[in-house]
């Protein structure tokens, strides 16, 4: 299976692991991630303002690219996923906004929300299947207690993300279980790490991140997994005394493709 892949700026720089393991794991599962040509940065955070059009065009172009190829659009980074999905939702449900966008898109043939956007986890759940994933696991993570950290960007706003129940999600826990590990259930898994506030007020980010880590550890977690480079950064900067690992890294480990065999 081939899908259009939007890696995003961080995955090409500071979060190379997230990208690398995503590609290798997908390949092992029979999915080829075809990187979108000339993709542009999503902007990192979705602007809810009705009159913000230009800031959303890079997402629309990526969506258009996938829809032209009749491929699902897959993202790994939580932020890219959030921005692109919210943009697609607006293109489908906000006609005035879609009209404005399409004034910029005329040369490309216009776009009206046809693309289907999948987060990497959704790809595993809906396109690959967690049962298939389970069968392909070579190194089971049995006995490992893992806390799934959704943060805000994967789930909210629930209507636009449509990924899972925004208050009681199961997708990441099912993913953890498919890899043979135990999923820890904890309340702060969908609370904010502080996000970009670490620019304005590192203390606020630290306060939020500390509360997240404390709750995960109280629930018995030995590891926190995330799909978001900024969550990882904030949790680690706040002095996390628990490993914070990308979802694709434990996936690659479980599938036995973490080390590059071609190297």
């Amino acid at each position, binding site marked *: 299976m081939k899908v259009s892949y939007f890696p995003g700026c961080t995955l090409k720089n500071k979060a190379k692991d997230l990208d690398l393991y995503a590609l290798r794991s997908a390949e092992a599962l029979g999915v080829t991630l075809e990187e979108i040509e000339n993709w542009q940065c999503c902007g990192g955070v979705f602007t809810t303002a009705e009159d913000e059009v230009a800031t959303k065009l890079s997402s629309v172009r990526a969506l258009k690219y996938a829809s032209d190829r009749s491929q699902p659009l897959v993202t790994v980074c939580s932020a890219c996923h959030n921005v692109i999905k919210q943009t697609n939702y607006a293109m489908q449900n906000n006609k005035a906004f879609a009209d404005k966008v399409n004034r910029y898109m005329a040369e490309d043939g216009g776009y009206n929300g046809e693309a289907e956007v999948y987060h990497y986890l959704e790809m595993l759940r809906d396109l690959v299947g967690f049962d298939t994933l389970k069968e392909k696991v070579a190194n089971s993570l049995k006995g490992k207690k893992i806390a799934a950290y959704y943060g805000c960007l994967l789930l909210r706003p*629930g*209507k636009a993300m449509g990924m899972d*129940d925004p*208050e*009681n999600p199961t997708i990441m826990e099912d993913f953890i279980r498919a890899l043979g590990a135990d999923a820890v*259930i*904890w*309340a*702060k898994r969908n*609370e904010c790490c502080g996000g970009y506030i670490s620019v304005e007020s590192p203390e606020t980010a630290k306060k939020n991140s500390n509360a997240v880590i*404390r*709750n995960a550890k*109280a*629930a018995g977690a030995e590891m926190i997994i995330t799909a978001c480079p900024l969550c990882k950064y904030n949790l680690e900067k706040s002095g996390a005394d628990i490993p914070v690992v990308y979802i694709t890294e434990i996936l690659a480990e479980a599938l036995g493709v973490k080390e590059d065999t071609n190297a």
Partner: protein
Amino acid sequence: MQRVGVFVCWCGSNIAGTVDVHAVAEALKNEPGVVFSTDYQYMCSQAGQDMIKAAVKEHNLTGIVVCSCSPRMHEATFRKTAAAAGLNPYMVEIANIREQCSWVHKDILTGTEKAIILGKAAVAKVNLNAPLTPGESPVTKRALVIGGGIAGIQTALDIADAGFEVDIVEKKPTIGGKMAQLDKTFPTLDCAACILTPKMVDVAQNEKIRIFSYSEVTDVKGFVGNFDVTIKKNARFVKEDICTGCGACVEKCPMKKIPNEFNLGMDNRTAIYIPFAQAVPKVATIDPNACNMLKKGKCGICAKVCTAGAIDYTQKDEYIEEKYGAIVVATGFNPISMDKFDEFAYSQSKDVITSLEFERLTNAAGPSAGKLLRPSDGKHPHTIVFVQCVGSRCEACAEKGKEYCSKICCMYTAKHAMLTRDKYPDTEVYVFYIDVRTPGKNFDEFYRRAVEEYGVKYIKGMVGKVTPEGDKLKVQASDLLSNKQLHIDADLVVLAAAIEPDKSARPLATMLTASMDTNDFFTEAHPKLRPVESPTAGVFLSGACQGPKDIPETVSQAGAAASKVIGLLAKDKLTGNPCVASSNELMCNGCSSCANVCPYGAITYADKEFRMPDRTTRIRRVAEVNPAVCQGCGACTVACPSGAMDLKGFANLQIMAEVDAICK
């Protein structure tokens, strides 16, 4: 051509203030068929009615047009007047020149012009009126009450008290409903069981009342006075008439880990069980999904210990057909599921509970024998947070929650908070509220007592997140009046979950052709003036199936529904409404369009023999209307593509004549 008399009413100044009534009477004199036209101050008064009667005699009138208030108000009055004067009562037409004219116009010229047009339309219609005679049907003098909670119990007792037979169908093994699960009742704090169980016993002992427990209604046919109902008695694998309710089987049953519904899963019951000590009927029931004998053919202990020989593993579901004159719906409510509200961590912590679970926790017959203990560790909670409006008052298009106010939560939360502070003064009690709504006799006083005398901390604001951590529930909430975000380490969080109609209500409404609103509450015939009748004749509403209600309101409505049923059953014959649909068999092509739109199931099809022009005969499928079931809504006449279906008293020709008169 009819000989029509026109009578224009002033209604004091109500009509005459903005309509020139003399001009209306004068103008209508020239309409086809009109032989007499006059106006009078109060046409509905005795003098006005006498004037009509005299005019009928003097001018040999065959049709009457009264230009007055809405027909809802006085159509029946003027029909009686016509009948007294020797006319068929259906030869009267009302032109509504008050609600639809004088009350909405300010200018006398436009008001008068419109009144004249409305009068012309009524004259055009009455010219095409034909005398109608209502039919009669007999009444089966027995009522069916669906649902055996406090609503159904009260309705059944009141009907039986008047001397009529009543059957209660209850899907659970016992009657009693939600009230049986409650601890105390607001605002008087009497014990729910103490006031409910005597009524349950009354029901059991009343010769006029039969209880079909563990049963459900599966089919309803017929119409007001003559319903044919199929009741499915689910196999309980215990002979009801032999079981003495001694409980020996329950004691010996080896399957002891089945979640106990009566205690909302907070403790366990056995596979053979009696829901609670005061159950009516007090007989055991075997849960077929839990019983080893029924599942695997191994065990049989209950049969061995039953000295009465009541156990019957071969019992089958039984279908009973019964006739009823009236049906009362009393299917009640349930708290909504908290699955979609996990910001309050209901699925994550045993110590986040609903208010109904709290009732069981404080009930002497509950899982903790009435001691308020945390479900997780059995410890006494020292800080309790109550959250109001969980799932109530949500946006209409919200994917979770209900748009309406659930009405009972403010009061039961005040009760829970007050009783907790009374029994455990060392416990801090917080109530987060959006608004405190306590309209009801002694209700606000009760809530104020909770605050002023018992020291319950009421905080205007909402809880945003509950985080279980260690043995605490970290509650993050807003205090809008002091403009603060609060962080409370609680031991127990109680959610006032919105209530919704029981899930059985929707399929039942379909069977009864009774209408529901978008929330699946049954719709009443008139929200103010006919609150306990459904729009479907012979179907009545009792309790929370019609809307959120507390116990006093439910009991009042239950009595009101009973009195309506008694009024119906007291009659030997029912006079129908003659303005019903009828099908012209020669034009009907049997397409079923009418039957598909009929909300009352009044239309059936029959194969009939017709003589063709060439003297051959042919069998054709044609529509037939049951006039006793038809409510005269007219949906079928609009749906009929061949124009075969028509409504007596509102024939297509009459409607067109009215439109023509208006457009002329």
